[in-house]
């Protein structure tokens, strides 16, 4: 198509207005409208989930004769239930998972991004991405069949040496413990944390790494002065992603734990349960009030996840000016 020469009689400002009104501004409006729409949609979905959970939870909450927050037992059919033991099991297994997984994941990510020769780095990165995609039921089965046998001696060893610390105390005679659950969760969330951290570490501007090296930093000092501080918000986000997966993990935990509704200071002793595993195990078997109680427990899990994420956002925002985002 031949281009029409601009009408030279018209003042050029008008030429400008016509163009932007028809083309550029319309595109801007569509983009703003659709991104705002997407934002509102997410909020609406969140609110809808919250409301749904709340409405379905109310019957069991009103008929419950025990304190929901402090009761460990979970027997909704007899109106004696609470979320204390579930919350404890969920948080403890997830915290164990994070303590084990985060340092290892950062190590793997640093190795891939800053230490490994290029070839090896590419292969490793690929393997880590693959692992991140393994379905959790596989981890659960592996945890049940393989890990349960081999982890018991380790748990015994910890119990022998560190049994004087209450967390590792008690008598160890089965691998169906929160500790085993935490280990399996750690292995599950390790790849995703490592993958995200690797991406973050690769984003560190070369100029900052060179600045450290030129001051006479060794490679590890360079990582400490330039890479890790720059990657800090990313590490936190990766951790939250892993934590979210750990908090909500159902199948693997359901397969590993032999559920009991009691808060046990020792993470090595048999028992414990989590929100998600409990919902999966009990949903089929119990009556209407029971389901309502399970939904109530789901609501609590939802709130915990929200709180954790808001906390992480706050931590990241606190040092925003030092994040390097402006550089």
């Amino acid at each position, binding site marked *: 198509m031949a281009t029409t020469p601009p009408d030279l009689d018209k003042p050029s400002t008008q030429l400008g207005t016509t163009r932007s009104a028809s083309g550029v501004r319309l595109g801007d409006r569509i983009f703003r409208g659709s991104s705002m729409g997407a934002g509102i949609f997410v909020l609406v979905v969140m609110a809808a989930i919250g409301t749904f959970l709340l409405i379905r939870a109310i019957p069991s909450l009103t008929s419950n004769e025990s304190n929901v927050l402090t009761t460990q037992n979970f027997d909704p059919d007899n109106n004696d239930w609470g979320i204390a033991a579930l919350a404890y099991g969920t948080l403890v297994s997830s915290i164990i998972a994070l303590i084990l997984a985060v340092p290892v994941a950062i190590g793997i990510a640093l190795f891939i991004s800053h230490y490994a020769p290029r070839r090896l780095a590419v292969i490793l990165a690929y393997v880590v991405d693959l692992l991140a995609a393994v379905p959790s039921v596989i981890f659960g089965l592996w945890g049940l069949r393989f890990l349960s046998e081999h982890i018991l001696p380790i748990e015994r060893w910890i119990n022998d040496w560190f049994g004087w610390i209450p967390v590792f105390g008690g008598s160890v005679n089965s691998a169906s413990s929160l500790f085993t659950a935490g280990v399996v969760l750690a292995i599950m969330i390790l790849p995703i944390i490592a993958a995200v951290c690797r991406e973050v570490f690769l984003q560190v501007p070369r100029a*900052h790494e060179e*600045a450290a*090296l*030129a001051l*006479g930093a060794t490679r590890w000092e360079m990582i400490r002065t330039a890479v890790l*501080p720059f990657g800090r918000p990313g590490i936190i986000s990766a951790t939250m992603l892993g934590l979210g997966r750990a908090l909500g993990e159902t199948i693997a935990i359901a397969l590993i734990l032999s559920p009991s509704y009691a808060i046990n200071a020792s993470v090595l002793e048999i028992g414990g349960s989590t929100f998600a595993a409990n919902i999966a195990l009990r949903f089929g078997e119990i009556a209407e009030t029971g389901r309502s109680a399970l939904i109530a427990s789901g609501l609590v899990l939802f709130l915990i996840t929200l709180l954790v994420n808001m906390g992480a956002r706050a931590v990241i925002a606190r040092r925003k*000016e030092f*994040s390097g985002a402006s*550089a």
Partner: protein
Amino acid sequence: MAKRIDVSGLNVYYGSFRAVEDVNMTIEPRSVTAFIGPSGCGKSTFLRTLNRMHEVIPGARVEGKVTIDGEDLYGQNVDPVAVRRTVGMVFQRPNPFPTMSIYDNVAAGLRLNGVKKKSQLDGIVETSLKGANLWNEVKDRLDRPGAGLSGGQQQRLCIARAIAVEPEVLLMDEPCSALDPISTLAIEDQIAALKEQYTIVIVTHNMQQAARVSDTTAFFNIAGSGKPGKLIEMAPTPKMFSTPSEKATEDYISGRFG
């Protein structure tokens, strides 16, 4: 404690691409040496071989010999980390650590060297910032992020960071390209003061600057794109700017280039 640098038969490569060919030169202690030449002729590349920063680029390598006070920079037992603690560097683009405060940026090199005492750090941070002509602008906000400064201030922060560790040789790659004339003059004064103690090498595109600050000037040139850069001529600055022996040097300096 200034040091003499001797370079002989130096070839610098990025992978199979030879960026700098066969450089021979001597850089005198307690003097300022300026590198001039058209863009892409390998001034930065060559400069980075003097503190072994070139080799941190994947595939980059160096052939030939560099000695600092007679000691082979690329010798078998020489630790590049130790070299970089002696030969400091200011980069072409300001690169303060974005996650650190102004204070921590200046103290970064000292902390790497194991200086921990607060009083000692405070003193050196202040002297270094004064040395880089930045102290008055930032003395009330040392705990603010270094990345929040203007481009010129950031570059002076980088200069302060480099001189805080008292290197014996200071390499500056176009340190003033982001600075206003006042800061530029301040940096030039600072260079004049620093040369009492250090050996200074400065890359610049500004002929007047080279004429003002340097004792010796080296002119690099490139025959064409894809060809390696070469050292064309090196002489005392007054001679270079009045009666250079090479035609190419004269053309470049007088602006009749290409």
